[in-house]
């Protein structure tokens, strides 16, 4: 993440004299097929992934949780309608939805971000609606309503504090999924276009050279694996915290 501060090279700067180099003092992680610094490119790819994960998690959290609480509150027809919409979106595999969106404007970060946010918000909707309904049905909320408190208060004191742990878990899983999804569509060449440094795209670009330079192909894979694993562990850790309450 700190790469731009440390090194002057850019993601795209090529050096065709030094292609597929092994790691050296100058190039700590070696160079790729165009002689570009792997270190710089990995750092840029990682930054891009985190940006996307962060953005889409925040967006989907707001959309998904908002709709879920709205549906749990209104019940009746509104809930049925929203359920129908969400269920039909859920019937599509998430990746197909992202591919569809990405195909509309190929190589657009915004489209990928939108698509991933929509896919992630489905999960929020499902989980949060179920727990919100239980909370809204509880005697605690009923007594708060009898005492004259309004919806904002119930949201502040009852819903959000109780939903917070699940929101955190969902967000950690969501971030892992978002990173994986972007890498997957990069891998099938529908996502961002070269020369952007993106983990999935790097994997597919380095794929032809795996016999000459296996260490290069390993790098984005290891990074992807580590990031997704840590996010999942983070989510899992929080799950234990919920169980132990």
């Amino acid at each position, binding site marked *: 993440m700190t790469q731009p501060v440390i090194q002057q090279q850019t993601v795209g700067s090529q050096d065709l004299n030094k292609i597929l180099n092994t790691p050296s003092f100058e190039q700590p992680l070696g160079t790729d097929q165009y002689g570009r610094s792997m270190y710089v490119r990995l750092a840029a790819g990682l930054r891009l992934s985190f940006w996307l994960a962060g953005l889409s998690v925040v967006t989907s959290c707001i959309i998904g949780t908002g709709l879920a609480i709205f549906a749990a509150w209104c019940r009746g027809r509104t809930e049925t309608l929203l359920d129908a919409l969400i269920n039909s979106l859920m019937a599509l595999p998430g990746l197909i939805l992202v591919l569809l969106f990405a195909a509309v404007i190929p190589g657009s970060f915004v489209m990928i971000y939108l698509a991933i946010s929509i896919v992630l918000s489905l999960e929020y909707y499902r989980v949060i609606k179920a727990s919100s309904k239980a909370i809204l049905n509880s005697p*605690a909320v009923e007594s708060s309503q009898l*005492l*004259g408190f309004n919806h904002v208060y119930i949201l502040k*004191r009852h819903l959000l504090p*109780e939903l917070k742990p699940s929101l955190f878990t969902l967000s950690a899983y969501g971030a892992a999924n978002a990173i994986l999804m972007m890498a997957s569509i990069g891998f099938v060449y529908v996502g961002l276009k070269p020369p952007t440094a993106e983990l999935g795209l790097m994997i597919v670009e380095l794929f032809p050279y795996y016999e000459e330079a296996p260490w290069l192909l390993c790098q984005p894979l290891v990074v992807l694996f580590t990031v997704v694993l840590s996010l999942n562990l983070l989510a899992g850790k929080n799950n234990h915290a919920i169980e132990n309450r």
Partner: protein
Amino acid sequence: MQLKIDKLTIYSDENLTTRAHLSDRRALLGPLNFSFSDQEPVTVLGHTGAGKSLLAQALMGTLAVNLTVTGTLTINGRIFDLADRKKLQALWGKTLVLLPQEPWNALNPLKKAASQIIEVGRFVLNQDKQTASKQSIQRLATLSLMDCQNKYPHQLSGGMAQRLTYAIISCANTPVMILDEPSKGLDKTAVEQLFKQIKHTSQQAALLTITHDLALCQRLGGKLLIIQQGRQLAFAQTKQLFTCPRLPYLEQLIAATKPPSIHKKFGSVNEVLLEMKDIQYSISGKTILNNVNLTLKCAQITLIQGISGVGKSTLGDLICGLKRPSRGHRSVDNQVGKLEIQKIYQEPTAVFAPGIPLKLLFKDVCKLHQIKFSSVLNGMEKLKLDVSLLQRDKSSLSGGELQRFALLRVFLLKPKIIVADEVTSRLDECHSRTILELLINYCYEQNAALVIISHQTEQIVTLADQIISLKPVLNKR
């Protein structure tokens, strides 16, 4: 079957590092020494928070890991170390069985009643499918649960769930049975049915009953173990303990069962606050209430009684306006504002938002209704609540304290009508008496109408101005 418990002591692991020796640490419970057998059942009596349930957990090997237990359990000469939880757990089903405190939570919510009993036959008694299901039907019939065969736990009332759990634990004919608060939250008829069953089982099994119900413990006979704040106060024949001169502690418990002392104010205004006519309430095609008439007047106590599942709570919700009647008319007098009908709930732990200090919750109420916070503090003093309790959240307060906080929060709004829905069923006798006194005194002081929904009616019958007995509505199929 002979059981003997020696020097059972439970310590909490707090301050483990600072104090090296077990004997230096404060014991939560014990040391307890007692024995019981199939000839002589033992009843454990004590206040809420005396450590009764810890005893059950220690014997079952289910104590929380941050608690340390020492002592031994001897079953027919075999000695078990209570600290070895694994060994105790190996006894489950075959030798040792527990009726848990909240049977509702113990049942599998995804399985029908009958199949939960069949499981015991299949996996504990190793019966084949047919024998197990035949036996399960017999069990259900003896506990008059035949209608529930194909029902899921959420479709059962508290009493039914209790009986079903009892059927499950008793069908393996386990020689040792621990019953944790078997009569808690049950109405009189349900307790009666359960008692018959317990009496029947006690002829075959060694029974350890944990309760705060004095009537039940007198009827069970055998020996009585009294625990006060974790210490063994007495262990002797029940009859002997109940004959004079009694222990002061027991005396205090007995006094609490007598009706509360209230000085009724006369000459109070007899204005009608709420009227309900020909109320009918049905939900998903099933009529729960039919032709109910009710009038609430100032300074009047109304008792709603009936067996569990008859719709008492539903009527309470109709009075509060939380549910709407399917048919009939509900009219509220103009002097009763929208916020002046309040409800007190059965489960005091369920009415406060979790994880938030009570002080914050009370400040919220004060801010919303422009009440000075000092009136909260005054109220707390009246209700004998310590100021320091305000800093805690609901998880670190006892049921009795929380119920008083719930009362206080409702009293702040000066309601004209209070619906108290089984407010005392989760509390021991001393606490429930206090709560009732507070409610009734408020009602007379403020000229409010009080509706008490209860199945523990002896205490209230003498005080009620009108009694509404609900009977089950017959549904035509």
